[in-house]
């Protein structure tokens, strides 16, 4: 089919790699607008971030795609498939998925700020995957923009040519056409044989209430048509394809997807695990004999307990987690039973941001009030009997006498920081038990690599790194290995009762200080009640810190006359509303935030 061959030559598949705030969303909106993907009135700001949370926080969580048609200066019309990528370090795993569907990537760098570590990590991923990386200098309209310096920095740090990088401003629209021209010229068309047996890579799958599982795929070889019978290669299950098509960014049925193209496939699959991300689709007729190389499954890095405040919500909480996990293959959960908090779930997350987002979605979209316990990393424990256990919950740490050695997870953290803040960053890393392995100067920036305990990194490290460098330092990290460490469990007791949900695992050297800070923090967070409340921190049977929430002296309205009744009623109702969000432990009412107090200590 000559028409098809022609098409494939004019296809360009690309992603955008950019740091948060460097203008990825604005740039994608501009590209869509320029190519007429949406009428102006349909341009809800930042169309690709379709979840409310994505738009509010200005971040992308899920990969999405859009197919555009661009008539280039050479007179030809090109099909541009743009696959969006998440920008936050928690979601770097999803980036590699998006990149797997592309031949090229736009490296968008803020011309005023320069390269950031996260961008760099993603950029290296792209280069490793043999993608053509096209540097773009954005925000050149800013008075503080230094395109030449930043171009040099890209060359120096990333190691790609950037002197003639496109200069644009997604905000004002300057240079947008140049970006499109560069995509067409520099990114190669997809290879692949339309006549060969079908092989399509599942870049992402999500569950839609009306359509079932929708899979975003990149067709590597062959042609997929609606009505074909497809086979999911890992499971061997076959399904009749209902619909195929593109996102323009509206879902548009085309009836056919050819080799080189990116689009959606809907085949009436009811469970997201029926179309796993990274899997290969083929057809039952003339099936491919080999699956495409997929990508490794993401593993949760931190675990936290999540418990509904009201036990009546348990069922709806379980349903909500089930629904969320339909769209989030990296979300892991299993039932957990806490003496203090009752029935809930142990939930695994990619990182703290992921955790915050899940908690927010559960509370907002599913209207469930939750208590989240302090997140913890996974420790490897060698017991004296020679067995090894993985511990993702402080409560499950074996008794001290049974433990031979505890190993904590260590990450390799790559930090990019302007020279003037290097000292602060080093101080922070040392404070967090870090060990420097590499330091390279690139012009104004320094790339420094540390081995750091993951437990220290996942908590507040990112925030502190940002504040100690006035926002300039950036971070990327990945798990490196387990390392022996002198860890202990600090238990918290409220009025003498051990509260399992408040236990934390910490390094012995920090345990005294953190215990003290923690009981102090708890004292501030727990409101005065009808009796004194003793808060103690203990290691084993040894009390290391103590504080007391003093008794509330009285809780009485000073006055109340005839006309006051309605107003006073409102006042008391409001007080009670506040209490509803507290958990009663024994007879002590403990607010939600107290369970996350661990995060506030050790600063």
């Amino acid at each position, binding site marked *: 089919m000559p028409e098809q061959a022609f098409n494939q030559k004019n296809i360009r598949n690309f992603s955008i790699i950019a740091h948060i705030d460097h203008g990825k969303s604005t740039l994608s909106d501009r590209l869509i607008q320029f190519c007429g993907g949406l009428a102006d009135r349909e341009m809800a700001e930042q169309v690709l971030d379709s979840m409310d949370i994505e738009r509010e926080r200005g971040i992308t969580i899920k990969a999405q795609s859009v197919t555009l048609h661009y008539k280039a200066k050479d007179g030809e019309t090109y099909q541009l498939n743009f696959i969006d990528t998440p920008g936050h370090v928690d979601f770097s795993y999803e980036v590699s998925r998006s990149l797997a569907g592309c031949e090229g990537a736009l490296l968008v760098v803020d011309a005023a700020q320069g390269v950031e570590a996260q961008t760099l990590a993603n950029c290296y991923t792209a280069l490793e995957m043999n993608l053509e990386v096209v540097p773009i200098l954005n925000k050149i309209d800013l008075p503080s923009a230094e395109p030449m310096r930043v171009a040099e920095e890209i060359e120096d740090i990333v190691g790609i040519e950037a002197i003639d990088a496109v200069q644009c401003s997604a905000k004002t629209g300057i240079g947008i056409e140049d970006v499109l021209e560069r995509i067409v010229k520099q990114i190669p068309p997809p290879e692949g044989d339309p006549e060969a047996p079908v092989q399509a890579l599942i870049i992402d799958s999500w569950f839609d209430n009306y359509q079932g599982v929708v899979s975003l795929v990149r067709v590597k070889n062959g042609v997929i048509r609606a009505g074909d019978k497809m086979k999911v290669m890992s499971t061997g299950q076959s399904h009749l394809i209902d619909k195929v098509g593109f996102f323009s960014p509206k879902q548009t049925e085309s009836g056919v997807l050819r080799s080189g193209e990116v689009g959606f496939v809907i085949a009436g699959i009811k469970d997201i695990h029926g179309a796993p991300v990274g899997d290969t689709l083929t057809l039952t007729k003339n099936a491919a004999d080999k699956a495409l190389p997929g990508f490794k499954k993401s593993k949760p890095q931190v675990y936290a307990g999540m418990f509904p405040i009201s036990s009546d919500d348990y069922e709806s909480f379980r349903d909500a987690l089930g629904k969320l996990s339909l769209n989030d293959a990296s979300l892991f959960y299993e039932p957990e039973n806490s003496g203090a908090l009752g029935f809930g779930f142990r939930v695994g997350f990619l990182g703290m941001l992921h955790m915050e987002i899940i908690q927010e979605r559960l509370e907002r979209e599913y209207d469930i009030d939750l208590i989240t316990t302090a997140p913890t990393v996974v420790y490897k424990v060698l017991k004296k009997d020679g067995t090894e256990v993985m511990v993702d919950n402080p409560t499950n740490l074996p008794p001290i006498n049974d433990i031979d050695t505890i190993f904590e997870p260590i990450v390799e953290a790559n930090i990019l920081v302007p020279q003037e803040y290097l000292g602060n960053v080093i101080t922070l890393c040392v404070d967090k038990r870090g060990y420097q392995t590499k330091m390279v100067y690139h012009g104004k920036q320094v790339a420094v690599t540390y081995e750091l305990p993951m437990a220290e990194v996942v908590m507040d490290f990112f925030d502190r790194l940002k504040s100690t460098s006035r926002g300039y330092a950036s971070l990327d990290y990945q798990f490196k290995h387990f390392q022996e460490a002198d860890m202990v469990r600090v238990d918290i007791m409220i009025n003498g009762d051990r509260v399992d949900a408040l236990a934390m695992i910490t390094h012995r050297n920090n345990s005294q200080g953190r215990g003290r800070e923690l009981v102090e923090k708890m004292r501030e967070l727990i409101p*005065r009640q*009808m009796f004194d409340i003793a808060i103690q921190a203990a290691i084993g049977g040894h009390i290391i810190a103590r504080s007391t929430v003093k008794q*509330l*002296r*009285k*809780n*009485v*309205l*000073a*006055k*109340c*006359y*005839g*006309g006051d*009744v*309605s*107003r*006073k*009623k409102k006042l*008391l*109702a409001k*007080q*009670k*509303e506040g*209490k509803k969000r507290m958990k009663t432990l024994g007879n002590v009412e403990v607010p939600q935030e107290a369970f996350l107090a661990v995060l506030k200590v050790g600063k």
Partner: protein
Amino acid sequence: MLPPLALYIHVPWCIQKCPYCDFNSHALKQDIPEQAYINRLLDDLRADLADVQQRPLNSIFIGGGTPSLLSADAINRLLQGVQQLIPLAPNCEITLEANPGTFEIERFAGYVRAGVTRLSIGVQSLSASQLQRLGRIHDPEQARLAAKHAGQLGLNSFNLDLMHGLPEQTLADAMADLDGIIALQPPHISWYQLTIEPNTAFASRPPQLPDDDILWDIQQQGHDKLIAAGYQQYEVSAYAKPGHQSKHNRNYWEFGDYLGIGCGAHSKITVMTDNGLSIRRCEKIKHPQGYLDLTRPLRYRSWTVAEDELPFEFFMNYLRLFEAIPKQLFVERTGLELARAEQALASAKTKQLIDDDQQYWHTTELGRRYLNSILDDMVGND
């Protein structure tokens, strides 16, 4: 049987608005339209006559705002008008709230001639700097004079209002204030803690209040002082010499009925129905301008209190009286079965905030300190 009936009359004007006050009061911009307002009050009462249901008035309370901005003549006309519409019970208590300003003090005798039997004087503090901070326009000397004067008028009783827990107040400051008040020998003292109410100047710019421990010491020591001086505490903030409790306020706390006339006044009226009783509340138009507009109805809104809310309303009021609560009275006043009250108090009982026997509920020592906790289980379940 219907509960006893009281009448509240609201006078909405003040010379200036105090920063802690959340009552319906309006700073006076010109002379009070006395005649027009009295006429309107009597119209208001006339429209409510059906709610009287053959009951005499046990008490009348003219509150505000600052009722002592009205002339003695006006009060006379008002009270005459009321008596023509509703008979007064023997010994009907008629209270008027007054500011201890020189100008008002001169009117006291006239008020007594008009029928007022009790004055309630808003002293609030005897510290000049505190008075200023509270937005009061009188000074300590005027307050003393007003109290002295009130004692010589042949009134049945009078009350002095005193606040504590004032901005930056120390224990010694508060005790000095209280000593000063006791020395004036009022038969009744309303001694209440300053609370920051929403929608007040203090709420938008909160002053530095004493901490909980100081407040507690003030309350403990002040209470002892009042008891030693011969006062009895009969409500959270009300202290009286024997025989001088306020009938009118007791009626609120005993969940009696009341008519409210004047700007923003509230009524609570019990109505017998085929299947027991129901309680109706009503609120009058709040702003003087609207209230004085002859073309507009005086009732702003009225509603029937939901059955579910009756235990809360009953106990929120009655618990304030530090005395045994007759179980029979709950049934009488709410029309609900006793079981509803027992249910509402169950968790307070396990927390030992409430005790009971066959006929009465008793608030425990602990319960008196945590009245709001007793009410907790009754509120917000709608």
